[in-house]
């Protein structure tokens, strides 16, 4: 064992050096060439050379005040707020500055000039300095405005980012009957604001990272620093720091790069569009990851039972909440095993179904030319195709598709005697069940596994299904999400967490946070 651990360590070290090499490859050259000289014309020319060929990058040269102090601003059309630039930069620099200057001409002193501009001229809240050409470029390209002034060797970066954001709308992927009609948008600052808005909570920590080697993006992790376990937060930070990929277009990339087992069919990270869901998770001591440019936030760690929960379970009273949860476990069972059980009983163990049922199935299957497996595959695959097609079609055509596919093809297949009516019932029940699962990604997982179960059933009947179940559970018990066993609290037993497992106990009784999260502060309610 010791030997192995050592080996692993060495390997990790190697990995580390590898990684830094890789990182360097994407880095811009870091020599003195990048630094500004302070010569206005030289610096401006260099900036022009780097990004001047882009039509959307605007260079505006002007004179400060009436004197011959040359200056220039550089900004990207559309990304920067032009009104802000006009009112608070151009006007301040060109008109207000000259008035000030008239009162006190000694301002010309170059060292004072920068401070003077910063402190007394620009009426802009977000302001920083850069010394380096590449820093300038990256800031400008994200919407800031750069200000070059003659004789000043630093460039001032003015926060004028306007960004394009859409209005806050109801989340499409997770509709609720009862609950806030608010969803995340593509703008990170809006999303963090939504979290902040939730209430005056000084415990909410939002920590920013930059990810993506070529296209730099903002990524934020959010947690309650008085609740979340410090080990968990560290682990999340570590894993995010290790992401090295040139671009992350969506949080799905982050999910796939930080999950524990990339071979597992199960999602080990939860995604959501709902701020209330994120807040709920943070209060359980979990950590949320938000990426700029996508409305989908990630929540870690996650357990299988959490993936089957909906925020509405808590908004409704406990009895309906609990019953709906039980129903969801049933749908999981149906969508995983219904077709395979049908195959097993029909093709292998017709003796184990009730006599009358056997009689009616025999009648129904009279003349069907395929064995049960082929019949099931035929139907399952056509349902999958229908689903996929319905997803891609423009909205008005979608329902028509459903009618054509579901009703006409199903009915015709039965009439033609290719498929037995019982099979149609089983397949549609299964499909509906997999849509009833609140987390879309889990539904997909179950659909994939269903096919495996069907093959197992077609080979070894009920025994095959048991083997499949054992294999699946053997995999599940090994799976962990950020150190939390994926199927807890079912195994290992955490009796105290069972209050929020298959059924949701009344809020009066849920006094503690989930134990598996190892929170700092376990009491939820006095």
């Amino acid at each position, binding site marked *: 064992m010791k030997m192995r651990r050592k080996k692993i360590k060495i390997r990790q070290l190697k990995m580390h050096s590898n990684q830094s090499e890789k990182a360097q490859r994407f880095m811009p050259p870091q020599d003195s060439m990048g630094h500004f000289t302070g010569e206005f014309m030289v610096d401006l020319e260099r900036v022009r050379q780097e990004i001047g060929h882009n039509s959307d990058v605007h260079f505006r040269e002007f004179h400060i005040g009436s004197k011959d102090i040359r200056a220039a601003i550089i900004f990207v059309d559309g990304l920067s707020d032009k009104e802000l630039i006009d009112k608070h930069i151009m006007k301040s620099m060109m008109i207000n500055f000259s008035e000030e200057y008239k009162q006190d001409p000694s301002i010309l002193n170059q060292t004072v000039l920068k401070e003077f501009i910063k402190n007394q001229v620009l009426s802009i809240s977000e302001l920083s300095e850069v010394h380096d050409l590449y820093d300038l470029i990256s800031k400008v390209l994200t919407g800031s405005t750069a200000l070059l002034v003659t004789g000043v060797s630093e460039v001032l970066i003015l926060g004028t980012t306007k960004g394009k954001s859409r209005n806050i709308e109801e989340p499409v992927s997770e509709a609720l009957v009862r609950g806030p009609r608010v969803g995340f948008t593509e703008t990170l600052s809006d999303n963090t604001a939504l979290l902040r808005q939730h209430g005056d909570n000084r415990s909410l920590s939002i920590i920013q990272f930059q990810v993506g080697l070529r296209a730099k993006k903002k990524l934020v992790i959010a947690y309650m620093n008085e609740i979340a376990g410090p080990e968990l937060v560290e682990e999340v930070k570590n894993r995010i720091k290790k992401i090295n990929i040139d671009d992350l277009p969506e949080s799905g990339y982050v999910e796939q790069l930080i999950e524990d087992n990339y071979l597992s069919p199960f999602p080990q990270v939860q995604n959501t569009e709902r701020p209330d869901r994120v807040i709920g998770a943070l209060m359980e001591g979990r950590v949320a990851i938000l990426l700029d440019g996508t409305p989908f936030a990630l929540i870690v760690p996650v357990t299988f039972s959490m993936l089957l929960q909906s925020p509405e379970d808590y908004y409704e009273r406990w009895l309906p909440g609990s019953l709906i949860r039980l129903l969801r476990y049933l749908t999981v069972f149906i969508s995983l095993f219904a077709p395979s059980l049908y195959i097993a009983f029909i093709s292998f163990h*017709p003796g184990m179904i009730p006599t009358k049922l056997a009689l009616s199935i025999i009648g129904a299957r*009279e003349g069907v030319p395929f064995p049960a497996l082929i019949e099931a595959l035929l139907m399952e695959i056509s349902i999958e195709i229908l689903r996929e097609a319905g997803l891609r079609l423009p909205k008005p055509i979608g329902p028509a598709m459903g009618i054509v596919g579901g009703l006409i093809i199903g009915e015709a297949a039965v009439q033609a005697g290719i498929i037995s009516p019982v099979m149609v019932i089983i397949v549609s029940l299964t499909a509906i069940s997999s849509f009833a699962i609140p987390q879309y990604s889990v539904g997909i997982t179950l659909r994939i596994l269903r096919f495996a179960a069907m093959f197992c059933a077609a080979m070894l009947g009920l025994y095959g299904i048991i083997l499949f179940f054992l294999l699946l559970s053997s995999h599940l018990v090994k799976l962990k999400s950020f150190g939390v066993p994926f199927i807890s609290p079912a195994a290992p037993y955490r009796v105290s967490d069972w209050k929020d497992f298959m059924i949701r106990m009344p809020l009066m009784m849920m006094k503690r946070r989930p134990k598996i999260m190892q929170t700092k502060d376990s009491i939820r309610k006095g």
Partner: protein
Amino acid sequence: MKQRHKNVRLLFRFLSFLLLLTLTGCWSQREIEELGLVVGIALDLEKDKSLEEALERNENRYPDKALMTITNQLITSETTGAGKKEGKSQQKAYNNVSESGDAILPVLRNMVLRSDKHLFAQHLKVIVIGEDLARTVNLNQILDFFLRGQEVRPSSIILIAKNRASKTLESKEPAVIPALHLIQISKGQERTTKILPPISLGKLSGKLHSESSFLLQNVSTKNGEVKFEGASLIDGRAKKLRGFLNEKDLEGITWVTGKGKGGLVKSLDEKTGQLIIYEIESMKSKIRPHVVGNNISFEVNISSEGRIAENWVVSRKVSENEFLKRAEKVSKKEVERLVKNVLDKTQKEYQADVLGFGDRLRIEYPKVWENVKKDWDQTFSKIPIKYNVKLTITDYGTSVLNK
């Protein structure tokens, strides 16, 4: 990392193995529509033995005694499906196939030669044994195949048919499946004392293994209709049919064992000679063995509560206590008569304990039982049995008067 790659490798190995299985697999697969579900089996003694034997001698075949005829009631996709789809309601919902031979399995296998369906007995509901066969052949031998194989479920029910068993698996109405019909009737103890609780194959295996005698349900056919009629007494030693008990005897048996769940007592009013019908609501019976020295005796205490369900006695107010007492008395006498009748019959005529007296002795005096159990049926026939009957009328329905 190493661990992880191992897992990957293992996963692939497993997958390739699964693939291998799909190539060769599906050994036990058998589609349901290819099966012929056997729902009922009738076993009869071979009808015309001499003819069959003559035939055999001529053909000089394997010495097949052709001891019995087996009739299988089959349900196949043709019998269930076709009728529904094309509206051919006249077609029979079942198909009876008969074949003769000297043992059960070979006969069943011979049917393979005549049918495209795979015979499948897991849905077997009822085994009917013909009177002649049950009288001549040991039940243990007849039923061995059914008890040994895994296909026949121990929940199937055993019946004895008066005359031919195969007749009981026929029905006039084509839509009715006789085997399922029989099962429904066999559970009728809710409302009559004239039927025994059904005996399943599983329970029978225990009874056959012990030495004691027991009863089986009896069916008879008249004009193409089946009827449950009395019971058959199976001898504990020879495991053969000893004789029949009629419906009256059966009523007595139900009273002594106390296992009835409902039923009627029909008696005549002493004064008017009119009918009074007593309906049983609850029934209890306690058999008490007494052992003094070497003398064994039994005491049976029967108690029942019920109500007057039908009254033919004219112009009497039913609610009067005096009348209720009278009714109780006549009903009680009737029950006593039934009990006496059956005790006489079992003790004297058949000399077989089918009423569970031996069981009570075994439970309360296990050591005495060990001594007498060898010749219990003999011993039983000479044991004095006392019985007390107590009936209580608790209720007289919605009508107080009877005009």
